[in-house]
C-alpha cells in the first residue's frame, strides 16, 4: 500500500518536472499557455476598444482635433510665405539694419506676389496679419492691391499693340496648355454646348489644367502666374482658362521671362513658336517698368524700411510672435521687446483672471462649506429641501441669473435702493457694484456655488458621525473635534470643489462679459474678442494655450501638494 502511493507520487513529480523541462507550459489545446492567454486578452482589449470607439471618434473629431488645430494656429504663420512666396526668398538677403529700402528684384518679386494675391483677394488677409505686428500695414496692402494692376497694364498694352492675338484667351490657352488638355477641354466645351442646346443638365467636372511640356522650364514666371490663374478660374469661377484672358500680371511675367530667356520660342512649335519669337524680338524695345517706383507710387507707405523689416521678421512658417504678444512682448526686427505701454494688457488680464478666480473659489468655499455640512447632517427630508434650493440655480438659465444680478446690483438697483432707504448710503453716493470686479465675483460665486457644494456634500456624506462623537468622547471640544477630525476628512471634497470651481471660472466668459464692465473682464473675454471681432485667431490661440498651460500647471502643483487621489467627487 505504501509502496503504491510512493510510486504514484514519484510519477506525478516526474510529470511535473518533465513539463517544466520541456519549455513553456501548455494550455489544454497544446498551444503555449502564454500565447493563448495573450490571445484571450487581445480579444478582450479589442472588444473594449470597440465599445469606446464611437465616443472616442466623436471626441477626436469634434473636440480634440479642433482644439489641436486651434493650438496649432498659435504658432502657425504660413500666410506670409504662402502669399508672398518669391518675396520672402529674395527679401531674406536684405539687411534691415542698412537703413535702405530693399533692391529692385525684391520689389519685382513683390509685385508679382502682390498682383496674384490681389487677384485672389488674399492680400487683405495678409495685411490684417501683418497689421498685428506693425500698425498701418493693413491699409498699405489694401490700397496697393487696388492699383497694382496698373503696372501689368503697361506690358499688356504693349503686347497687344504688338499682336492683337495676345488679347485673346485662346492664344494663352494654347501657349500654356498641353495637347492632351486642349483636346480634353475642347471635347468638354462641345459636350457642354450640346447639353445647353438640348436644355439638359451637364455636371461633368472640368478637366484639370495641364501645362505643356517645357512651359514651366522656359517661362517660369508666366507659368507660375498662369497656374494661379488656372486654379482661380477653376475653383472660383468654375470655368476653364479658355473663357477669359489672363490677369495683367501675366503680361509682365511674360515680359520678364522673354527678357531673361530670349530663345524660349525654340522650345515651342507652330503658331506658339511664331508668336513667341515675334514677342521675344520685340520685348527689348518695350518700355520697361521701374517696379520700385511703380509700387511706391501705388502707396507711399512702402518707402518705410520698417514695413519690409516686418515682412522679413515674420516670413518663417512658424512664429513665436503670437505667444510673445500674449505676454505683452513683441518680436521686432531688433529682437524681442516689450509692447508699447498702452498696449500691455494681457499680463494684467492673466493676473486679474487668476486673482478673481481665486477670489471666487475662496468665496465658494466659505459660503459652500457650511451649507454642505448642513446638507449632510440634516435629516433626509430637510436636506432634500435644501438640496433643491442649492440646485435651483442649475435649473435657471445662466443669462437670467446674470441679468438678475444686474438688476440687483446696479446703482438704481434693488440693493442700492434698500441701502439708501435704510439710510446706510447717501442717495448721491450709491455704491458701484456692477460692471466691475465686485460684480463679476458676486455673480460668478453665485453661479459656481453648486459646483463647490456638490462635491463637498458627497464627501461629507461619507464621514460617519461617529468620528466626531468619538473625538468628543475622547475629550475634544466641539471646535477641536471639527478642526482635528471632521475637517481633515472633508479636505478631499474641498479639493475637488476648488479644482472644479477654479477651472470653470478661469475660462468663464458670459458672466464677466455681462457684468464685468472694463475692470471685471477675464482673459477669456479677450480671447472671444480676438476670435469673433478682431479675427486674430493666432493671438486668441496663443492666449488659449497659455490659459490651458496655466490650468495644467496648477493641476500639477495641486497634485504635488494635496495629491489628486485626495480629490473625490463622491
Amino acid at each position, binding site marked *: 500500500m505504501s509502496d503504491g502511493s510512493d510510486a504514484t507520487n514519484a510519477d506525478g513529480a516526474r510529470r511535473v518536472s518533465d513539463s517544466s523541462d520541456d519549455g513553456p507550459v501548455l494550455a489544454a489545446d497544446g498551444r503555449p499557455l502564454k500565447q493563448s492567454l495573450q490571445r484571450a486578452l487581445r480579444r478582450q482589449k479589442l472588444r473594449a476598444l470597440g465599445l469606446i470607439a464611437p465616443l472616442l471618434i466623436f471626441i477626436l473629431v469634434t473636440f480634440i482635433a479642433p482644439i489641436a488645430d486651434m493650438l496649432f494656429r498659435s504658432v502657425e504663420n504660413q500666410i506670409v510665405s504662402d502669399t508672398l512666396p518669391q518675396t520672402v526668398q529674395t527679401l531674406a538677403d536684405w539687411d534691415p539694419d542698412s537703413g535702405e529700402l530693399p533692391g529692385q528684384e525684391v520689389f519685382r518679386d513683390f509685385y508679382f506676389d502682390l498682383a496674384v494675391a490681389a487677384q485672389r483677394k488674399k492680400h487683405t488677409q495678409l495685411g490684417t496679419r501683418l497689421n498685428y505686428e506693425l500698425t498701418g500695414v493693413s491699409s498699405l496692402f489694401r490700397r496697393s492691391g487696388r492699383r497694382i494692376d496698373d503696372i501689368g497694364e503697361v506690358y499688356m498694352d504693349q503686347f497687344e499693340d504688338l499682336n492683337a492675338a495676345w488679347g485673346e484667351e485662346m492664344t494663352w490657352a494654347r501657349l500654356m496648355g498641353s495637347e492632351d488638355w486642349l483636346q480634353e477641354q475642347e471635347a468638354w466645351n462641345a459636350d457642354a454646348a450640346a447639353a445647353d442646346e438640348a436644355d439638359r443638365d451637364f455636371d461633368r467636372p472640368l478637366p484639370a489644367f495641364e501645362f505643356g511640356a517645357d512651359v514651366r522650364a522656359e517661362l517660369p514666371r508666366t507659368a507660375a502666374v498662369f497656374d494661379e490663374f488656372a486654379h482661380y478660374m477653376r475653383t472660383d469661377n468654375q470655368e476653364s482658362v479658355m473663357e477669359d484672358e489672363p490677369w495683367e500680371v501675366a503680361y509682365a511675367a511674360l515680359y520678364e521671362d522673354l527678357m531673361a530667356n530670349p530663345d524660349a520660342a525654340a522650345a515651342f512649335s507652330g503658331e506658339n513658336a511664331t508668336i513667341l519669337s515675334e514677342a521675344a524680338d520685340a520685348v527689348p524695345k518695350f518700355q520697361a517698368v521701374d517696379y520700385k517706383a511703380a509700387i511706391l507710387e501705388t502707396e507711399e507707405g512702402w518707402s518705410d524700411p520698417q514695413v519690409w523689416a516686418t515682412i522679413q521678421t515674420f516670413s518663417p512658417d512658424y512664429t513665436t510672435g503670437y505667444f510673445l504678444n500674449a505676454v505683452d512682448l513683441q518680436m521686432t526686427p531688433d529682437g524681442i521687446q516689450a509692447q508699447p505701454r498702452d498696449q500691455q494688457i494681457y499680463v494684467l488680464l492673466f493676473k486679474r483672471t487668476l486673482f478673481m478666480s481665486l477670489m471666487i473659489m475662496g468665496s465658494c468655499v466659505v459660503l459652500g462649506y457650511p451649507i454642505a455640512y448642513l446638507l449632510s447632517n440634516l435629516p433626509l427630508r430637510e436636506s432634500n429641501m435644501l438640496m433643491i434650493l442649492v440646485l435651483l440655480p442649475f435649473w435657471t438659465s445662466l443669462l437670467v441669473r446674470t441679468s438678475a444680478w444686474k438688476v440687483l446690483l446696479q446703482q438704481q438697483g434693488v440693493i442700492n435702493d434698500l441701502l439708501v432707504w435704510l439710510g446706510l448710503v447717501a442717495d448721491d453716493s450709491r455704491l458701484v457694484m456692477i460692471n466691475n470686479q465686485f460684480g463679476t465675483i458676486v455673480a460668478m460665486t453665485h453661479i459656481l456655488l453648486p459646483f463647490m457644494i456638490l462635491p463637498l456634500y458627497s464627501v461629507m456624506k461619507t464621514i*460617519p458621525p*461617529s468620528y466626531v462623537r*468619538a473625538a468628543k*468622547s*475622547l*475629550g475634544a*471640544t466641539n471646535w477641536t473635534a471639527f478642526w*482635528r477630525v471632521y475637517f*481633515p476628512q472633508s479636505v478631499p471634497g474641498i479639493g475637488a470643489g476648488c479644482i472644479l470651481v477654479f477651472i470653470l471660472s478661469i475660462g468663464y466668459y458670459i458672466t464677466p462679459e455681462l457684468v464685468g464692465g472694463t475692470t471685471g473682464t477675464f482673459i477669456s473675454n479677450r480671447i472671444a474678442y480676438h476670435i469673433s471681432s478682431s479675427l486674430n485667431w493666432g493671438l486668441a490661440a496663443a492666449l488659449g494655450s497659455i490659459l490651458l498651460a496655466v490650468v495644467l500647471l496648477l493641476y500639477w502643483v495641486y497634485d504635488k501638494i494635496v495629491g489628486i487621489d485626495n480629490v473625490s467627487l463622491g
Partner: protein
Amino acid sequence: MTAASEQGFVVFDRVQKSYDGETLVVKDLNLSIGKGEFLTMLGPSGSGKTTCLMMLAGFETATHGDILLDGKPINNIPPHKRGIGMVFQNYALFPHMTVAENLAFPLEVRNISRSDRESKVKHALDMVQMGDFGGRRPAQLSGGQQQRIALARALVFEPELVLMDEPLGALDKQLREHMQFEITNLAHQLGITTVYVTHDQTEALTMSDRVAVFDDGRIQQLAAPDELYEQPQNSFVAQFIGENNTMMGTVKEIKGDACIVQLDGGELIDAVPVNVSKPGERTLISIRPERVEFNKERLHEDAHTLKAEVLEFIYMGDIFRTRLKVAGNENFVIKTRNAPDQRRLKPGEQIEIGWLPQDCRALDA
C-alpha cells in the same frame, strides 16, 4: 464607603427618552452600576441599548429623569467633559491619523506634555499587544487589530468608566471569543467600570458581572449570568437567553416554592412558580433542554412524567439533540451529553420524560 459608591457609580434614575415626542424608546429606566463592575446591556435590535449608552456618553439628552455619575447629575455636562471612554461599533479610528496619533489625541486635548503622552501611548499599545503598530494607519490594520486600538484609545486617558457599543460585532467567531477574554481581563485588571452593549447572549453571559436584558425600552431582568440563565424572571428572558422549551398551561395548585401546572393537553407537571400567584392562572412553563431527563432511574419517584415520542435525533459531536413530540408540542428539544453510557434515542421510540421541579419555571403567560 462614600454615598456614591453605595448608591452606585453610575445611576439611571427613572430615565425616559423619546426621539419624536410620540413613542418612548426608553421607558422608565432604573439602573445602578457599581464601581468596577462589568455590566452588559443585552437585548434585541431596537430595544434602546444604544440610546441608553448615548445618553450616558452625552450625545443624547434624557427626555425625563436623571443620570448620575459618581453621585453627580451629568445631564448638563457636555460629552467632552464627562471623561467617559467609548468604543464604537465601527471603532471610529480617525483614518487620517496614525495609530499613535489616534491614541495621543485624547491626551493632546487634555494638554498632557509630549513625553508623558509618548509613554502613555506606548503603555496603552503594549497593553493591547500592539506595540509595533504605532506608525500605521488604521486602514492598514486587520479588524481585530483595529478593535484593540479602539480599546486602547478608550483606555489611554484612564477614564473610570468605559462604554462599548457592540465592539466585537464585526469580528469572526474565533477572534471575537479571544477579544471577549482580553476585554474582560483588561477591565478587571484596571478596575474600570464597563458598560457593554451587545445582542449576542453568549458574549453577555461569558463577559459580565451582571447582565441587563432590554426589551421594549425596559430592563426585563438585571442579574448575574448564571441567575439569568437558570432563573429567568419572565417569559421574554427565558426565551431570549439560551434555548428553552415552552408549553402553555394553567396553575393547578401552589405550595410555597413549588406548584403543579396542568398543561393544555391535561397532563400534570411540577414547576417553580415565578410570576404566578394563585391557582387557575394561565402560565407559560419553561424548561431548559439539558435539564430534561428520560432515564427514569434518575428521576424522583413521585415526579410527574410526560409521554413523548422521538421525532428526530441529531448528532452534534459533544451533545445529542433530540426533538420530541410532547403534549402536542412537536418542537420539544432535549440535549444530552455525549457520554460513553449515554443512550442514543431512535426516531419513533416512545419514552417518558421528567425533570426536577426546580428546573421547570412557571412564568407569565
